């Protein structure tokens, strides 16, 4: 279970990226966080594993208060939180297997990691996971030889190898084409069921969020403005989430037919991005 209480982040530049965000995530749900660029989605995810230090507020994972941990304690606890990155975050020049096994770095000693000697069960798990994400036979390929969709699968496999209690996914589809995006989201949803952990996905494609998420969080200008199942995400709610839109886009939205809503939604995101 993940819980954030009054989470707040103010950057040194004075930008308030998160403002009093309190959320509780239970069980195995897939939670999609939507919102315009700059709404604070990435900051929210990074405040959970403290790649970004929150300014105030608490984060709890099960009965551990992440925000209260010392550096070494945090390092140990991070092993329980898998993360999938927007631009994959893979070590490009290493093989697929090394990247996947790097999910176990927190469990092996320095010399073992230097010699790439991982325990047999980790290697077995790595092979199984590669098979699971559809990359069987790719273990000795270098990551920079893979396509975008394949790389993101490696990123997911690395997170799975951690046997995490929570999976954080930051804009997994932003560098992928629509078809691949769909397949990656499908995989993430299945992984959530397989591994029995909650998954938080930042995503800017609202239709993917609606299709795959059990629950949607809408973030606007650092504040939580929507929290509910996809069915409840109606036009009014979308407007609330994307209210920071420019006038011209607002104008085009008001003249558009309802069937074009998705289109204008995308248009709006392009303008914001």
């Amino acid at each position: 279970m993940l819980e954030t209480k009054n989470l707040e982040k103010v950057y040194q530049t004075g930008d308030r990226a998160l403002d009093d965000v309190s959320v509780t995530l239970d069980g195995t749900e897939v939670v999609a966080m939507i919102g315009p660029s700059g709404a604070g989605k990435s900051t929210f995810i990074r405040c959970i594993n403290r790649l970004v230090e929150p300014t105030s507020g608490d984060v709890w994972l099960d009965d551990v208060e992440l925000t209260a941990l010392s550096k070494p304690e945090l390092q140990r606890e991070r092993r329980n939180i898998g993360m999938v990155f927007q631009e994959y975050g893979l070590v490009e020049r290493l093989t697929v297997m090394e990247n996947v096994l790097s999910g176990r770095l927190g469990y092996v000693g320095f010399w073992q990691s230097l010699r790439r000697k991982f325990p047999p069960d980790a290697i077995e798990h790595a092979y199984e996971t590669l098979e699971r994400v559809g990359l069987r036979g790719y273990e000795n390929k270098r990551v920079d030889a893979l396509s975008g969709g394949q790389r993101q699968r490696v990123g997911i496999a690395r997170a799975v190898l951690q046997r995490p209690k929570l999976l954080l996914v930051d804009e997994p589809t932003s560098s992928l084409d629509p078809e691949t995006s769909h397949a990656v989201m499908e995989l993430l949803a299945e992984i959530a069921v397989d591994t029995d952990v909650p998954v938080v996905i930042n995503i800017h494609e609202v239709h993917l969020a609606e299709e795959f998420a059990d629950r949607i969080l809408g973030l606007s200008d650092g504040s939580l403005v929507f929290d509910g199942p996809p069915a409840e995400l109606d036009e009014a709610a979308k407007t609330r989430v994307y209210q920071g839109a420019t006038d011209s886009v607002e104008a085009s939205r008001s003249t558009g037919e309802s069937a074009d809503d998705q289109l204008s939604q995308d248009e709006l995101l392009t303008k914001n991005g």
Partner: protein
Amino acid sequence: MKTDTEASSPTDWDRPTIFYNEYVKWTVYLLIVLFAAWSYWEIRITPGRLLVGLEQSSQLMANAWPPDFTPERREMIWRDILETLAMAVIATIGGIILSVPVAILGSRNLVSERVFWIGRTIIATSRAFHALIIAIIVVKAVGFGPLAGIITLMIKTVGFFGKLLAEEIEDIDPTQLEAIEATGAGRFQTYFYAVVPQITQRFVALSIYRWDINLRSSAIVGIVGAGGIGQTLVASFDRFEYDFSAAIILVIIALVLLGEAVSAVARKRISTGAAGVETTPTRDAGRRTWNRFTRGQQLLRYGSVALVAGVIVISWRHLEMGIGVVRTAPAELYDLWTRMWPPSTGIVAEMVDPLLTSLHIAILGTVLAIALSIPTALIAADTTTPNRVTYTLGKLIVTTTRSVNVIIWVLVLVLLLGPGALAGVVAIGIRSVGFIGKLLAEAIEEIDMTQVEAMTATGASRLETAVYAIVPQVKPAFIGIATYRWDSNVRASTVIGFVGGGGIGSLLMSQINQFQWANAMTILIAILGIVLFSEVVSAYARKKVM
């Protein structure tokens, strides 16, 4: 594999190696380590000798400080500096003019296969020999003085410029040629519209860059009597006037840094200027006219050309060389050639040992440089340096070690450590620190921080993060830089013997001084061999780690 999907997955995995197999890999590593150990054994570096050197250095510092800038000395330095500058200018212009035909010979898309190989052989030979080796021969052919230096630098320029220009010509986009030809343009019109615009910018940038390199070289060719400030420097060492030596070295550093700055600024202006060309529609008697440049730009262009021409004329007049010497030089070089060919075999037994010493010096110098440059790079990269003070220190080490030529380092270190291979090793090591440190720092600054962040997020320790996310990103650059430097160091190790730094250089010098030209030729061929060998090895290593 298709049938046994029920079987459990493998439980062990080995990283694939770029070598044929693990045994080959470890054999290669072992050989490298053994060779380095052999080098170390041969050079006999003992802490005692280094300690003596440290003691000597305080003594030398006391003698060299303050630098001797008395009016009389200032005048000498000023005269030499002007000569050095003039040599660099004339050699650059002459070398470039000569290198155009050589580049055409070496361009695969313009000439037949046989001519191509002749062109490339000229280029490779002139690149393989260190400027000082060429200088020592040219001095014998045309006598002491700046002319020898100019010829030397021209030969080096032909190698450098010919190669890069040939590559540039080979890269020309043929569709542009076709398109201009298709409009019905004549041959020369086609050249001016389709070929010249494609290579002008790079041509000018390379010319300026080569001038910068020639300036560095013209400051040292005087060590073997080929004119410029090097002659005065080596004389000051011979007369134990170390305070004067210090003054000269400081001036050379200033000159080199100034040349580098001028060259960098000029090259930057060229690359940005070309993009910023403006067209000016104006109205003239009701008709629209069009000019490629505004009047101001046109004046600036004519002004720059006039300035360059003026510098060339002044340089030529300053050197007070008649055109006559240029006419006789080819004949004298030909005469020398007849005395060198065929090479003698009598020297072979005698030269094996010093040749090996040169290789040892290059290897140990590179190892020393790597050991010193890793910490230097870490403090000179703005992403890893602890604070401003260390950053400045790092940059300072990089700049000072880089701008002093290896020969000058040898001159100084021979005083501290005594003549021999040790001085050569330390000189090459110090000179290479700046080079490797600078490029490595740039590589460290360019790494992708997302990969580091991703490793941190898995709960990896700082060391593990460094090994998994930083080392793989920096490794290809590191191996590339190190092997490239080793390759350069092999060339350097063949000349440091001229000033007492050990290796094949001293044998070559003694043969030339005794006019044993056939022996000298044999040594030159051997040097060519090891230089080409090291170039092939380093190019192979670079290709492997890409």
